[in-house]
């Protein structure tokens, strides 16, 4: 039955002491066979199942997750959403996603708290200015809202920023008003709930061990809950996609590195927009709860540990203190890491491969969260139709052979 949420449903339940809320999703055991198995119960995977069921009429779908829903990078990122990418292919993909974000709460009837508070990318030298102005110009021609802000305009939006008295002064910024943040857990839960309602089996604590193929065709997935047959398998396992691909004999051009983030103690509102600076490596927004959510960089070395080096935290915090001196009096509440898969061109892979029925959605590097609904939407299309949607056609695996790369090192917030 479809769950309906509103202030009225809350009031009704309040009278019953909130005891009778229905379960968000079932906890089924896996069936023997599915039309599609999605490996990875994060936002991208759950969203893919949701769109497969909703837009492509598939019903016999499973999402298998080795831990708990949204426990990977979906629950570990800094939730920044924007679409101001340089190249056309990226811009269209992320803009597709941004448009879906704008209606996601209504569509899911679950508040993902998409907060369009704007995203600012700072320029600290002449080279930054040139690169950022170029990106703003490209965004505008692609129909994406993007502005160049002068130092004075920045100061007006973020009065606590120290623009002059620092090693690399702030000279200007790009600004995307429609960008912002969202509540990461809610995205996973919202997609999971609505996918479950359409019959998708969401199976937690079910680890994929091996992707089985026969004669160039997918057979199914060997899991911690036994072998499950499938016509199609979509792998969306963020930090472990490369490992899973190898079980099917496929080497993906991915490097896996720890990426860290941290939050401060909660305080009353102090910064009302998202500010990113790749030059001094500091990006920050303030959560609705009042915590400063701060993104750090990746470690220099490949690793599968979900904990990065402390020196990376240090670099980020000193950039924060430099840019926002008052933050010196703030305290770090929690730090954590996640594993990100990075492609040579810092763009994702949303693609079929040489094995019939096997699909990959990976390589999102440090910025996959913003793409969640868009990525899920076009990946579902790719799986259902056996061919890429126009929007993700550039993000195929062939590009690493042909050389038709989508080099987004400049627009990706974190230096890869």
């Amino acid at each position: 039955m479809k769950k309906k949420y509103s202030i009225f449903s809350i009031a009704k339940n309040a009278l019953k002491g909130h005891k009778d809320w229905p379960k968000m999703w079932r906890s089924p055991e896996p069936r023997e066979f599915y039309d599609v198995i999605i490996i990875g119960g994060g936002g991208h995977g759950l969203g893919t199942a949701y769109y497969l069921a909703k837009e492509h009429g598939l019903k016999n779908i499973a999402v298998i997750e080795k831990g708990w829903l949204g426990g990977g990078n979906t629950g570990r990122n800094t939730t920044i959403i924007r679409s101001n990418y340089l190249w056309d292919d990226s811009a269209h993909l992320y803009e597709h996603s941004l448009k879906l974000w704008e209606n996601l709460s209504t569509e899911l009837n679950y508040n993902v708290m998409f907060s369009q508070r704007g995203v600012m990318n700072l320029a600290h030298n002449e080279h930054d200015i040139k690169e950022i102005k170029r990106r703003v110009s490209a965004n505008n021609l692609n129909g994406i809202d993007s502005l160049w802000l002068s130092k004075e305009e920045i100061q007006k939006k973020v009065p606590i920023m120290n623009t002059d008295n620092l090693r690399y002064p702030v000279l200007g910024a790009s600004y995307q008003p429609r960008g912002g943040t969202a509540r990461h857990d809610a995205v996973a839960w919202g997609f999971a709930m609505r996918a479950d309602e359409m019959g998708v089996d969401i199976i937690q604590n079910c680890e994929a061990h091996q992707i089985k193929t026969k004669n160039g065709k997918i057979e199914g997935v060997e899991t911690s809950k036994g072998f499950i047959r499938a016509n199609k398998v979509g792998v969306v396992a963020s930090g472990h996609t490369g490992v899973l691909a190898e079980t099917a004999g496929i080497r993906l051009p991915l490097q896996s590195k720890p990426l860290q983030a941290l939050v401060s103690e909660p305080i009353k509102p102090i910064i009302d927009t998202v500010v990113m600076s790749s030059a001094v490596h500091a990006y920050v927004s303030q959560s609705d709860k009042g915590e400063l959510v701060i993104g750090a960089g990746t470690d220099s070395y490949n690793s599968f540990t979900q904990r990065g080096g402390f020196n990376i935290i240090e670099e980020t915090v000193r950039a924060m203190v430099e840019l926002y001196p008052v933050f010196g009096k703030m305290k770090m509440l929690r730090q954590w890491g996640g594993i990100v898969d990075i492609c040579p061109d810092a763009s994702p892979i949303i693609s079929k491969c040489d094995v019939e029925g096997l699909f990959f959605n990976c390589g999102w590097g440090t910025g996959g969260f913003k793409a969640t609904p868009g990525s899920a939407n076009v990946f579902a299309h790719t799986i259902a139709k056996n061919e890429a949607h126009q929007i993700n056609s550039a993000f195929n695996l062939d590009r690493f052979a042909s050389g038709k790369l989508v080099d987004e090192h400049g627009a990706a917030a974190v230096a890869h």
Partner: protein
Amino acid sequence: MSDLNLTDNKFIQFHQKIGFKFDGVKYYGYKGDTIASALLRNNLKLIGRSFKYHRPRGFYTCGIEEPNALVQIISEYSEPNTRATIKKIYEGMEIESQNRWPSLETDIGSINNIFSPVFPAGFYYKTFMGPHKNFWKKIYEPIIRKAAGLGKPPKEFKAVSTHLHHNVDITIVGGGLNGLIAAKSLIDTKYSVLLIDFDDQLGGILNNSNKVLSVNNQTPMDWISETVKEIENSKNIKILKNTLVTTYNYINHLIAVEDKFVGSRPLKDKVNSTLHKIRTDQVILCNGHIERFLSFQNNDLPGIMLCSSFEKYMCRYGVIPSKETVVFSNNSNSESLVFSLIKKGFKPKAYIDSRSGENIEPDLFDLIRKNDIPLYTNSQIKGAYGNKKLQKILVEDSSGGVNEIKTDFLCLSGGINPDVHLFTQSKGLLDWDEKDLTYKPAQAFQPTITLGSASGQFDFNAINKEINEKLVIFGIKPVQIKLELNTSHKFKIEKLWEVLPQKQTIWSKSFIDLQNDVTTKDIRQAISEGFDRIEHLKRYTTNSMGTDQGKISSINALGIVSDLLDKKVNEVGTTIYRPPYAPLSFAAIAGRNSYEYYDPERKSPIHNWHITNGAVFEDVGQWKRPWYFPINKDETMDEAVQRESKNVRENAGVLDGSTLGKIEIKGKDALAFMNLIYTNSFSKMKPGTSRYALMLGEDGMVKDDGIICKISDEHFIATTTTGGAATVLGCMEEYAQTEWPNLNVYMNSITEQYATFNISGPKTRNIIEKVFPEVNFSNEAFPFMTFQFHEYEDTPIRILRASFTGEMGYEIYVPSNQAVKIWEKIISFGKEFGLMPYGTETMHLLRAEKGYIIVGQDTDGSITPLDLGLDWIIGKSKKDFLGKRSLIRSDTVRKDRKQLVGILPTNKNEKLEEGQHIILDKEIKTPTPMLGHITSCYQSPTLGHNFALAVIKNGQSLIGTKAFASTPELKTIEVEIVEPIFYDKENTKLAS
């Protein structure tokens, strides 16, 4: 005042009165007081308002685990969220309560408590979606944000803190009973030891309770001071007090923060805190345990406190929060408090225990009986009631009858947990102890030893055995500590997590997380909605996600969940404690590496000359480069650049090119290496000649460029771009070490060893002949793209004939320490020929006129040498070089790739801008296809108009056609696509 007799209190200096302000009212405390102990001394019990419902809250604990008592320190740049239970007062300190308006007593936000039935767990996910999506942005979110958050933002502040590194054999975390015994046993061993304690007094439980009567027949105080003295006098042990270990990283790396101003106002320019980074072979965790609370209705009222905290206020701070308290417990940990109270003559008003009479410690039982204290066994507190403070409690006794007890204070103990945060941070595994009802360290992942209650070893009589067993690896002499105890030596507990209320209404609240206002009702709701995994539950209800990370309550939540799901606690799991142990100051993390030390400023050897001569600088990577040299303060950059560039074309100019990277490559296989790293072939090149060269990435895209001087087949000097120097050297090293380890080649940066002066312009030869009269600069003796070594007044110099401006030019390489002398000579000798210094902006203009690219400006990692029209630079006969394979990929050989072209505005005075895109249509309709973008663009005094370089799809074949540049306002400027060389196409100047 709630003072105890302070004459026998070692920690409070009662003769030293300290005045401080709380919410604008002046109070007095004593030296040694925390904010909490000082306010309790003044009978203040209300300290703050809760996060969500704005409920009145008091001091719940006496330590770092405190969930409620967070305050704003106005006198320290308004530092928010400071724990009143650990922050020491000083004269003139100003403190403010948080999250209330207009005042702590009367807080409008407490209206939330009335509406609380519609604020269940995760209510925000289910509402705030209508009637229009703009309502979230404009109305709901701003209200939510304003209501959330705890303290107010801090005020203007400049952090001063420092970092200290330690490499020691053993680090002992916690200087309580076990930590002191462990440290003492390591005195004068071969190990270097660090003993770290968060407190300013070592001794832990010995100071904070009356549990231990004597140690080795001495009073605890005497034993501590003697032991500490011995440790301090040892050569191998260092003690860090006021230092909290917050983080336990991999490879036994600890982060600890030391407060340098405990009990005094931090001085402005003095180091406020030190971040210790400790690498150690072995960690001994002796960081004790944390008492937990219990859930029942209104268990958050001011006047409710944990038992051991109450005892700590008495023993440590000489203050008694209440002279008539009720005690409620399910375990033996409350015993010590009852002893302490009776000893001081403050009989508890009642003692309530969920255990039956037989299960209560006999000594305690007798004591209570002897003193006629009302005793309720097999009993539970059903609820606590009162207006802004505790006034009465309801007790359900063994017969099921409900008794009302009027009281203003209640001490509570729900059991104890080993403080396992650091242990789990180290990735150690825990196991559930069904007898002691807590998680205990089971298996260390790193070289970690846990001792005492930190290891879940709650039996005082087992201390010797544990220490001797666990520290035997250090070859210590066996320890024999004799303890005389006030209480039973063993820990006993009976399961109790929550008492259900007498009457459940939609407003009743039994808290499970005090700081985040999570109730047990929220837990039930989350489980009914399917959030039955502990990580989901945590995120959905925000349980244990506050600044205290649920230190006194997270185990209770597991207990409640395990009962609800009818699973063992072990099966429910435990959440991962993420570092840091307690909130860690940003200033401390940043250390000295901020402000003037944020990043080194690299300066050319003649930087001071530039300053004296009025240069305006730009940041290029870490370098400060002269951008332009205004002749007076009125000259703008545009004017200066026009003048400087005109002068180079007409007379001569000199640029400080010292920041360009310089790499020396040597070795038997240097030639083979260079042939592999760069696109060019260096094999046929004669010694003494040089070449412009490109370095590609494996993807075939241009990554860097420079001039390669060949001294011999075994010796090259390469220049790189200013920003790319480190990357290029790193790349060379990587390939030499990983791809071609068979090559005998070495490379070294010599960027800082040499200054480089680029002189160019038609009068260059006149100047340079005058400066270096012994050198023959004729075309025959010194042709273009050759170099020679010379001596200038005993200084070895290298002169390279090359040009980046299109004019005839020489580059002089001189040792850095002689740079000023030679530069000044060039300037003074050049004066008569009109020589002027010029900056990077003029250099950029001049090279663009000539069609020379700047890597990183005209290229962006997606441009091949062919796209730049530099086909000649590729050594086609070479078997291999970096990026070669990618140059024949289908996309790289595509004909319609973006190619470097020139751009001229049809109206030649119209201003173009770098970053503008070139499109085909005059009218812009988004999205519009883009041909490419303008990479460089200048107003040329030589050409007399604007011009630009651009990379354009299929550019070469579009030369001669019209297109449009788009402006930020989405207007268009008509332009013509032209060849990318605007000056001296025939190359007559270079070799003139």
